[in-house]
């Protein structure tokens, strides 16, 4: 059996306690709202894109609405994509999803979420921020939810 420590790796606990980029971005030119309708977790994502580059990014979660996994994932995601090109960010999203679907680890600190694989009920939590990022980059207006087929 996979140990709880695999899921709640120190990086995750740390980012949960002290989330990075946890702020509203007044200069954002792309935003998205994401929600996990089944648990009520919600994220607001603010992105500033300059040409092809994500120059700044921030997120907020309503009071109490964000488990350790979803909050840490948002925190690490924002750190990872800041300063990257849109294409690079989308690639990271793909790598992240692949990891959670049972594939090889995503690069860098994102690998901290490899333990989520053994906790299927939490995969949506880990993906939430990334789905929102994807929506923001596509500039899709509709709020995204994690309630899509691929996530079962």
């Amino acid at each position: 059996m996979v140990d709880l420590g695999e899921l709640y790796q120190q990086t995750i606990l740390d980012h949960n306690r002290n989330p990075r980029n946890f702020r509203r971005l007044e200069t954002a030119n792309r935003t998205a709202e994401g929600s996990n309708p089944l648990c009520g977790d919600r994220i607001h994502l603010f992105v500033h894109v300059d040409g092809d580059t994500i120059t700044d990014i921030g997120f907020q979660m309503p009071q109490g609405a964000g488990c350790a996994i979803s909050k840490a994932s948002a925190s690490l995601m924002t750190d990872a994509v800041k300063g990257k090109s849109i294409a690079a960010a989308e690639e990271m999203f793909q790598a992240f999803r692949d990891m959670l679907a049972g594939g090889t680890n995503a690069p860098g600190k994102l690998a901290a979420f490899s333990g989520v694989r053994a906790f299927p009920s939490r995969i949506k939590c880990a993906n939430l921020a990334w789905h929102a990022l994807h929506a923001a980059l596509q500039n899709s207006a509709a709020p995204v939810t994690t309630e899509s087929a691929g996530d079962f």
Partner: protein
Amino acid sequence: MLETQKLRRDFPILERQENGKRLVYLDNAATSQKPRKVLEAIEHYYRCHNANVHRGAYGLAVEATDAYEAARTTVARFVNAWTREAVVFTRGTTESINLVAGSWGRANVQRGDSVVVTAMDHHSNIVPWQILCQEKGAKLRMVEITADGRIDLADYGKALDAKPKLVAFPYVSNSLGTVNPAAQLSKLAHAAGAVTVVDGAQSTPHLRVDVQALDCDFYAFSGHKMLAPMGSGALVAKPALLDAMPPYHGGGEMIERVWDDRSTWNKVPHKFEGGTPNVEAAVGLEAAIAYLEHLGMDRVAEHEQELARVAIERLSQIEGVTIYGPRDHRAGVVPFTYGDVHPHDLATILDRDGVCIRAGHHCTQPLMRRLGVAATARASFYIYNDVDDVDVLVSAVRKAGELFGVPA
């Protein structure tokens, strides 16, 4: 033909007797019997994985959710649905059609519009449209049937001339056995600008269904007629239509956010699955599909059609017997009357020989009126029936004739 002797051993109920005789169950159009594999799937679910789905963080709940969603994928593949989200689990055909009438119908049918059904439709594909049309001040148009029990294509064309909003028809008639040219009917209806609702209650259990080939908009069926538990079934629909439709049942699971006075909806198909879903039913339906696919739906269809052919041939040899429905393009449903012996009396007499058939209007009163009868007797076959069963049926019918002195 299928190896019925072997198959029967999979159906525990067929070991029981009916009135001291071997049970010859010929009421499969009403409901089917269940193979051991389906009963085991139900039991296994409750013994090992039972939990409420979609909302649990613990292992059991994940397993139940996975089982439920895997069943959706299986159903989608079985009828070749557009996507797995095109499958909305319901209690069965009646609920599926009421969902379409209550959601799509209420949102799209207006005063002065017309809705088309056929004279061979089951009450479940008539009454919801009557209620909708009465509520909306729309007109319900019933397409006539031909003398040999097919949809009258000339009259169908006339009905389409009025540019109906919606056209509903059965793929296979439960009272005549007619297999309707559903793809053609759907195409004609689309050309007239209508959406189509196909009642698949009698097709899904008995022949290979491909909703994309039919190109219908809504397709409804019941699990209990295809080896699956009661309470199982689905509405299969084009995803874009489902997306645009208002919800049906309000409640848990189908919402995204609930405010004091309004709510937003979850994605399709969850939007239409308010309340705790029946995971047992989904799991049982999946097991039933596995059983049927193992046999092969083409072989299933062939088997039943052959039994119907033999039954029609042998019953026709009895003086006074009338068979209803077309000569060809028919499924394993054999409706008949016998002189002036009332079908109820026939059913009682047959039951004494272990033969279970249905007698009555088969939930098709408008059709009965057109056939000019109050009731018919109906034998309907499934995979566990064979020519022996037909023989028992035929000799029991002869016995009824003797008792009642028919033909007089």
